[in-house]
Structures are given as C-alpha cells and as structure tokens.
C-alpha cells in the first residue's frame, strides 16, 4: 500500500454497535481536535435501540471551519463485525480502512487500502471489549498530531469516577493505540497535513441540543416540562443538568398534553416555560397550542423533527413537520416559527423565542431535527451573555383587564399577585376582563385583536441568511439544518451567479422574500422532506414557484456532495 496523504479536510467515520461508546470517542476526539488547533464537525447517526445494531459517527477535521455532513469517508474504522455493511456506498477506493481483520468485510480485503490493527487481541489482553474506544482515541489522536499527554488527560478526566482498574486499563488502551499509530506513521504509510490555527483553541464545541438549551437559558427559561422523545430529549436533559445553577424548574410530565399545559400554567404565574418534543408529541400538544392562542399566552415549543408519519424512524432526521407546526391547533391565532440553521442560530433564535413569545403573547415554535440535535462543531463564543431575557409583563392595578383592546392588539400582561389586579384568562371567547362571553361583537373584536398582533410580529421577521453571489441568476432556498450543508455546497460549486438563501424564520415569512427570489432566473429549493413543504408555503405567500426541488426523505441528512451534485444537475437542465 502506498503512503497516504490527507490534506486540510479529513472525514473519519467510526462504526460500531450501540453501547460500544461511539459517543465518547466523538466527544473526546472533537475536544482533542480543537485543542490541537483544528476545526471539527461531528454527526452521529444511530438506531433506535440501546445495544447492538449498527451506529456510526462522522468526525470531520479541517483547517477551515466546517459545519456540515459529507458522504466522503477518508478514514473508516469498523469497531465490530458487520460494521461495514451499511457503508458500502460510501467506502471508496480512496478510503483508508483501519481495523481488526475480523471486523473488515471480505470484499474489501483485496482492493482497498487497509491498515490492520489487532484490536481484538489487544482487547483480550486488556481484559474486555470496553476499552476499544480508548484505543481508537489513542490511535487517532496521534494521527491528528495530538500529544500523548493531552490524549491521556482527556481520558483520565472522562473516567475519573470509575475506579482505578478501569482508569488504568483505559490509559493502557490509549497508550497502545497511540503507539500503534506511531508505528504506522513511522512506517510511512500515513501523512496527514491539516493546517493548525490558534483561533479554535478557545472555541466551544456545541451540539444542537446544547445550543437550544443555552439559548433557552439566555432567554430566561426557568420552567421546562416535557416528555422524553427522540431526538428532542437532549434539550430537556441539558436543562435538567443546569437546573440547579440557573433556577429552572424541570418536570417530566406524564404525557405531552400535561407538559404543555404545565408550560401555560407556568407562563400565567410568571414563569418562562418551554417544552421540547418531536412531531408525535407535538401532535398531542395541538389543542393546547390553540389554547395559547386563545388566552394569548407566551409559549416556547421546540420540535426536534424526525421521519414520520407516526413513530416513523425515531432516531433519524427529516424536515417533515413544518406545515403541521404552522397549522396545528384549531381556530385562527398568530404564531411564530423559527428554524435555526447553525448552532449560533440555535442559541440566538431560542433566546429570541422567549422574548418574542413574551412580547407578542403568542406561541413560538423552534423547528430543529435529529441532524441538528446530534451534530456538533466548534464555534466562537459570540457573546451569548450579552443576550438579555426581556420581560414584558406589568404590575397591575385595580382596574386591570387582561384583554384590554389596544391599537396593536397587544394588551398588557399581568401576573397573579404582581400588583392589585385580578388576572383572568379564559379558553372560551372572552371579554376584555377575561370573562366568558357569547356576544357576537366582542367575539369579532377579539378575533381581530388576536390577528392584529401578526402585523407587529411581521415587522420583526428575520431575513434569510444569504451566501454566494450578490448578482445571482440562480437562487437556492433552504431552511433549518440544511443551511450549512447548502452553503458549503454552494461554496464548492464556486459560481458567481448563484446565491443561497437560508431561512431561519419560516413564519411569518420575511416580507422581502418575493423581492429576493423574483430576480432569479431559476429557483431551486432544498428540503429534507418528500413534499417540499416550505416551497409550498412560499408559493402560497408569494405566488412564486420553484423550478427545481431537491428533496431527501430516507431518514438521513443531505451531504455536501449530494447537494452539490443535485444543484449542478439542476443547473445543467436549463
């Protein structure tokens, strides 16, 4: 086998069973990567089971900032038998396969670039399969040019609560891995050249669920009641972990209906509540979403999308719930929908969701997906502590009327026992005081009042992030988690007549949307769903139709290569 050279952007995929500790490898590796001066991106894809099956993590390491998933695999590490089967299409002749002979499928053994390491034998010596991930960490860390010391330190930290024997064995495993890899490098089989940069060393590495969680904390979230549901649970767990520090009430509800009704009770009493769920759980919240509309309660709802309908593929990704987020809940009332593209969007928009919900007394939905939740990358601390939680409720007096008619439809929001006023909220149609009414005129005015709020909300819509050319013939539209992948693809295509518009606010639609799009000759939309839901909505709002739809709905996210190829195909079609 010839010596292998990898330059500036490397994608490592490690594949194993659930329970083999892929997540640890991923997290430790990304920490090692930035401390060594590399940019890093990771994405885990896994089955809906706790042990066995086949999961993988992609770790991209690069000299430039990278934040998206690629199909390309530079290094593939199978951690068990059967770990290669699902990667047939992605393991290329250029891929370096590193692993135990017994974990490598026969078909690769002749024609592919394989570096055998006697994983099983070493494991046996160490006394258990559980050390395999430490070994791999040692192995890769050397490849990346980490010092042995930093590798060891990370492992030590990781296992500090595990008793001496376990720590020692893991250290031993790291050491073995490190040495193995030294041998290989020395044997000149390998050469990785990724430019280092000091910049990243002080970076954060954030998963999507952490970004949403941090945004929530910054937005003043002090109440979360939810029901576990993949892929949204990470947000819940993150807030639980930080509950004591930040004074957050965390309660696992008996079901999603309870969760959101608790959330509404919390806002009513002066808390700042959110729920986190997935499409199926959100479906159960529809009635209470409508209640938020009726009582004009703030509410923040995070939906981590996964493929539906029904249970679908619990641990996979999709963007299939936009229209149901937009129209769930009976009756007519305002709402706001965000869909963060990258982790920074995740923090900012979640923070903003709390402020907007409070300001406009309306539910705000944040749409992410499994790809967003379970991918991570390094980023700057952009000054999150500067984000303020704005409170919009007021001290009430004797004459307080919860639904006082105001010019813009937004009545002052009171809180029980905060002032002398009495705060009445009612799911029935109500008068200004919150008393049930059957008066047809009051009804009409209350509908108008609620709908009126949309006007103020529309004044604060966020324009899509634009990348690519300013003088574009081709406009590519995407939303939510597709953003970074699309942007990287557009950058790769490197034409000066193409622009990419990544929407992070889906509803209400940025009012300059038609202007942005109509100047393009050809419009392309990219969505991780089967029916182009956002495209449908843009048509409804602007009359503009997309010429080409790039849709994916097999449960996996788009890769940079796929989008690149599909856009090129679309451009060729002219």
């Amino acid at each position, binding site marked *: 086998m010839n010596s292998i050279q990898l330059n500036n952007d490397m994608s490592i995929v490690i594949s194993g069973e659930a329970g083999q500790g892929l997540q640890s490898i991923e*997290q430790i590796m990304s920490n090692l990567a930035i401390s060594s001066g590399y940019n890093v991106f990771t994405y885990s894809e896994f089955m809906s089971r706790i042990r066995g099956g086949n999961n993988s993590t992609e770790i991209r390491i690069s000299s430039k900032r990278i934040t998206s998933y690629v199909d390309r695999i530079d290094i593939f590490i199978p951690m068990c038998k059967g770990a290669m089967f699902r990667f047939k299409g992605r393991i290329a002749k250029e891929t370096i396969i590193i692993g135990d002979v017994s974990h490598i499928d026969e078909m690769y053994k002749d024609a592919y670039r394989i570096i055998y390491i006697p994983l099983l034998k070493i494991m046996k010596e160490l006394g258990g399969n559980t050390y395999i991930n430490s070994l791999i960490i040692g192995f890769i860390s050397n490849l990346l040019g980490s010092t042995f010391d930093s590798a060891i330190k990370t492992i030590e930290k990781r296992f500090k609560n595990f008793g001496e024997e376990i720590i020692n064995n893991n250290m031993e495993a790291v050491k073995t891995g490190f040495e193995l890899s030294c041998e290989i490098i020395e044997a000149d089989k390998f050469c990785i050249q990724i430019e280092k940069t000091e910049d990243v060393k*002080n*970076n*954060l*590495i*954030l998963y999507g669920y*952490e970004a949403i969680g*941090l945004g929530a*904390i910054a937005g*003043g979230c*002090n*109440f979360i*009641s939810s029901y576990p549901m993949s892929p949204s649970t990470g947000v819940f767990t993150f807030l639980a972990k*930080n*509950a*004591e*520090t*930040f*004074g957050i*009430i965390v*309660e696992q*509800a*008996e079901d999603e*209906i*309870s*969760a959101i*009704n*608790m*959330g*509404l*009770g*919390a806002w*009513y*009493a*002066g*808390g*700042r*509540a959110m729920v986190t769920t997935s499409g199926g759980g959100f479906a159960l919240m529809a009635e*209470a979403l409508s*209640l938020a509309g009726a*009582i004009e309660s703030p509410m923040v709802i995070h939906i981590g999308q996964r493929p539906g309908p029904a249970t679908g593929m619990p641990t996979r990704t999709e963007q299939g719930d936009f229209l149901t987020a937009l129209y769930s809940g009976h009756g007519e009332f305002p709402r706001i929908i965000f869909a963060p593209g990258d982790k920074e969007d995740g923090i900012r928009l979640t923070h903003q969701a709390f402020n907007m919900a409070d300001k406009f007394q309306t539910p705000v939905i944040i749409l992410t997906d499994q790809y967003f939740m379970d991918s991570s990358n390094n980023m700057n*601390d952009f000054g*999150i*502590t500067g984000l303020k*939680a704005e*409170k919009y409720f007021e001290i009430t007096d004797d004459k307080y009327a919860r639904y006082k008619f105001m010019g813009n439809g937004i009545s002052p929001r009171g*809180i*029980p*026992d905060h002032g*002398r*006023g*009495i*705060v*009445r*909220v*009612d*799911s*029935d149609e109500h008068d200004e005081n*919150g008393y*049930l009414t059957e008066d047809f005129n009051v009804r009409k005015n209350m509908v108008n009042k609620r709908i009126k709020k949309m006007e103020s909300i529309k004044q604060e819509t966020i324009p899509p992030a634009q990348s690519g050319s300013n003088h574009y013939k081709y406009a590519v539209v995407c939303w939510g988690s597709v953003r970074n992948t699309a942007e990287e693809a557009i950058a790769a295509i490197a034409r000066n007549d193409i622009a990419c518009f990544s929407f992070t606010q889906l509803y209400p639609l940025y009012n300059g949307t038609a202007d942005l799009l109509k100047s393009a000759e050809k419009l392309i939309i990219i969505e991780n769903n089967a029916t182009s839901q956002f495209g449908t909505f843009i048509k409804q709002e602007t009359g503009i139709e997309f010429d080409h739809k790039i849709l994916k709905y097999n449960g996996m996210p788009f890769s940079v290569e796929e989008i690149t190829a599909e856009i090129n195909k679309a451009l060729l079609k002219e």
Partner: protein
Amino acid sequence: MSNVFEPEVDTDIAWCPGCGNFSIHQILLKTLSELKIKQQKLVLVSGIGQAAKTPQYINSNYFNGLHGRALPVATAVKSCNPELTVIAISGDGCVYGEGGNHFIHAIRRNPDITCIVHNNMVYGLTKGQASPTSRKGFISSLQISGVYSEPFNPLAVAISLNASFVARAYSADEKQTIEVLKIAIKHRGFSLVDIFQPCVSFNKLNTYKWYKENTYYLDDSHDPGNKVEAFKKAVENEKYPLGIFYTNTDNLPFEKHLPVYKDSNEPMYKRNVDSDKLAELMKNMKKN
C-alpha cells in the same frame, strides 16, 4: 361582612335553577372568605363544563383552560409561585374522564393544591351523557341501554396512589362541606374533595333525594391515617360515606422538592437569569 370574592358584576349565572352548583358556589365563597385568603393570592384553575364555570362567578384570578387539563396548569402555577393558594375546580367528566391521566399523576406529584370535583355523575354541559362516575344502568342519549362500565371510584384510586388528602362531600350540606374544604385547602399537599352534586337537568337517577338516602357521614371512629380502612370506606357502595377518608403526610409537596426553592422562596416571576453563571457555563463548556 362583605366578601371580596363575591362576583364584581351582577353576572347571569349560567346554571339551571335548582342545580347543586349553586350551593358549591356559595360554599366556596364562604370558605374562601372564612380562610381570609388574600384575593390576589388566590388562583382558581378550571377545565370546561358546567362545574368549570365556577371561577367565572368568583372575583378571583383564574385560568379557565381546556377540558380535562386543569391539574397540570394548577401544578405549574403553584410551582412557579408557591405563595399562591391554588384550587383546581372542575367536573367529574373533566377531571376523571378527559383528565384522568393528570389526575393520577398529579396525585403522585403531590403539589400543594386543592382539587374540587363537582361530581354530578353526568356530563352536564354537553347534555347528559354518562360520565366516568355514572352508576351502572344510567340511561342517556348515548348510553341507550344504560351504562355498563364499572363506575370510576376517585377516592379509592386516590387512596391507592397514596394521595395526601382524600375527602367526599355533598353540595347540599353547606356546613360540613365548608368544614371539609377549609381543612383541604389548609392541608399541605394534594387534596382531593369530590363533591356529590345533583344535576337536576340530566341526572334523574342521582337526585337530591337519592343523595340524602344513599350517603352518611364518617364518624370519629374512622381513622384517616389508616390506608386500608380508608380504602374499605372508599369502596363501600351500599351507602356512600362522606367526610375525610384519608390523609397522609408521607410525601413533601411537589414544589418543596424543587431545587429552585432551596435557598429562596422568591416566586419565579421575580427572578432573572444570572449572567455570571451563564458566562461560567460557557467557560466550562469550552473545556468540556
């Protein structure tokens, strides 16, 4: 003595003449006044139904939410501001039917709230269908040949779940019901007060007369601290006992467990994000 909880305006009360809800309304007004609860500190949470209209006729903060969903709302209100007195008040259909799952789990959680159920053994507002507590044989437009399901036994279920306070009252007995309600509201933890309430329009089986004939009061010999005895009483159905069946203080109230109130009792609305801590968290995340 003027009662601050008396409805401000002369509202047209939407109940049928003769309905047991009127007595419960009066009982509640008196209880609240006698307990000297500060008006601003009371929150009534209800669902939807005839019983659930009660807060409309009380000069109090209220959250008149969805059918079946009073308890999660009440739990959250109390937990965001433990200084409030929180009463969830709704019908048997609302609490035991649509809201059955919240009933179970609110009891397990044990927030310090009082749950008053106007148990008329029928769906009043929707015109007379059977409710979970309807007796076997009860005939309605949907239960053409009579109810055949076992009636829901809220007291026995609450006791099985080791509820903190379990009582049954009867709307026509003002004095006793006020007494029970006062104890229930003062009791720390989840208090269930199921109130038998005649529905004169749709329940021709469980009438004032029926209740009179089919109830009796638990006497001093009953020990509310004894779970098995309480259960025995709760499953009696020759005649239905009234009074306090069961109390226990095994469990702290929900909100007392919450770490947010460890160092301070300040309600949530007064609190702000600690940006120093946020900065520190960010710093820690960097190191991972």
